[in-house]
């Protein structure tokens, strides 16, 4: 994949049985920017990412990355699901989880290579979790668990990164580490998408925002998206926060 390829979402719609979850989304996501996906509960933020990656059936529309469908290039994608999707009592250590990021690249019937081990080791060091490598995943705090998942994503050597609500239940230190690495990834020319619902101070960390409520309300530079009109359309009249709204 060319390093500066972009993702194009073209007329994407998703419906579950009777519910229309996403309606006609058109969107271009470029590398080099930290992209925040915002919207109220039930806005379809997770659905958008899952549909883009082909993890759930779409009703209409295409998502391309460079010249080909994104869903056919998943080896380029690192995806970190919501914390609630994971069984934290699973019998695995930090090391086991980070090595999962190397499974696809390693290929069927092959053992993990020295290169894979070194990548996992470096990734753990980068998120400050190397000393925890032999701990059971369930013995960590929420923030530490999230950093381990970030390390897994880094070990994947992906060019597209998707994080679903990575800041839920994490400490200040982890939040700082996550934003720091997200920015480094963006600066290195990766496409970095982060689902968030916190409209507080941290929103200023994002360069680009995608504001969603079943349909696309607005997408683009932060200052351009955060208008009173857009926020009212996304969140209704009940939004108390307008500190960063132009």
């Amino acid at each position, binding site marked *: 994949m060319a390093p500066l390829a972009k993702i194009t979402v073209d007329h994407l719609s998703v419906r579950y049985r009777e519910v229309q979850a996403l309606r006609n989304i058109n969107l271009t996501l470029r590398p080099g920017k930290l992209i925040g996906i915002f919207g109220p509960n039930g806005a379809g933020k997770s659905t958008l990412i*899952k549909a883009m*990656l082909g*993890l759930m059936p779409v009703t209409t529309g295409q998502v391309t990355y460079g010249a080909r469908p994104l869903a056919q290039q*998943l*080896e380029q*994608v*690192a*995806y*970190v*699901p919501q914390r609630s*999707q*994971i*069984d934290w009592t*699973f*019998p*695995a*250590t930090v090391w*086991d*989880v980070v*090595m*999962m*990021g190397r*499974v*696809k690249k*390693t290929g*069927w*019937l092959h053992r*993990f290579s020295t290169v894979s081990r070194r990548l996992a080791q470096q990734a753990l060091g980068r998120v400050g979790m190397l000393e925890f490598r032999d701990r*059971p995943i369930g013995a960590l705090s929420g923030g530490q668990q999230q950093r381990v998942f970030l390390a*897994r994503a880094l070990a*994947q050597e992906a060019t597209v990164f*998707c994080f679903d609500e990575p800041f839920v239940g994490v400490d200040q230190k982890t939040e700082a580490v996550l934003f720091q690495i997200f920015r480094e990834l963006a600066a290195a020319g990766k496409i970095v998408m982060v689902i968030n619902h916190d409209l507080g101070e941290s929103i200023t960390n994002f360069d680009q925002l995608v504001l969603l409520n079943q349909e696309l309300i607005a997408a683009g530079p932060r200052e351009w998206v955060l208008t009173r009109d857009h926020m009212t359309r996304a969140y209704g009249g009940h939004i108390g926060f307008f500190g960063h709204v132009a």
Partner: protein
Amino acid sequence: MWLEVAWLNPLLAPLQYAFMQRSLAVAVMVGIICSVVGSYLMVQRLALLGDAISHSVLPGLAIAFLLGVNIFIGAFIAGVISTVIISWIHTRSPIKEDAAMGLVFSAFFALGITLITTIQRDNKIDLNHFLFGNILGVTPADVRDTAIIAALVLLTVALLYKELLFYSFDPLGAQASGLPVGWLNAGLMVLIALTVVASMKVVGVILVLSLLIAPGATAYLLVPRLHQVMAVGSGVGVLASVSGMYLSYYLNWPSGPAIVLVVSMLFALAFLFSPTHGVLTGPGSRVGHYLRTWLRRQ
């Protein structure tokens, strides 16, 4: 030299009989594969699915017997069909998965019992042996079939270990990295069905769930990684199935209940006394605190 092992006589004496050697071989193999495959069931919260598949094999077994086909094959096919119907009901209607399992396995089980009861009037086939196990009635063909299944199951788990670990821990993450999770899931279902079929003679279809879940659950309280859970679980499973075999031999108990009683007791010991999770000895427990200070003083 010979006298020193005299206490082993009660264990060794029965092994002079060929049928006991066959039982031992099958008990060891079944103890291992149940624990390995059951570890996946436990970590994926699919215990009920193990129960569903095991009850569903009966009609296939009966039909295969009627047609003169290998009953293992019939049982396996019925087990796989039941999982297909369960996921069909679950995905094509608002019925939840656990309700779908309950519906399907009770229907299959009822059909199986009806068929076998009808057949056993004219033939030498005993419903009780399939329900509760008859480890002492293992034939040379059973040993061969169990060995083939055990080799297949263990080889598959060994070859797909890293993919199955990723899939069972984080199915969405695994799918998003490009792994064919539909096939991995189907593969797991096939492994479960094969294991249940291999265990029929030993524990019977009603109690096989125990041999699937208890060894993994016991090991899970003792060690922190999945492959260790499988290894320690295999030890627990083999210990239970072999002890069950001897209890069955000396006390004339049905082998299934005997094995289940042993493995349940082993779980209870780990539950009470595990160094890391034990109710009495784990971190934060009073007894554990005293024990540790006492050990430190020694």
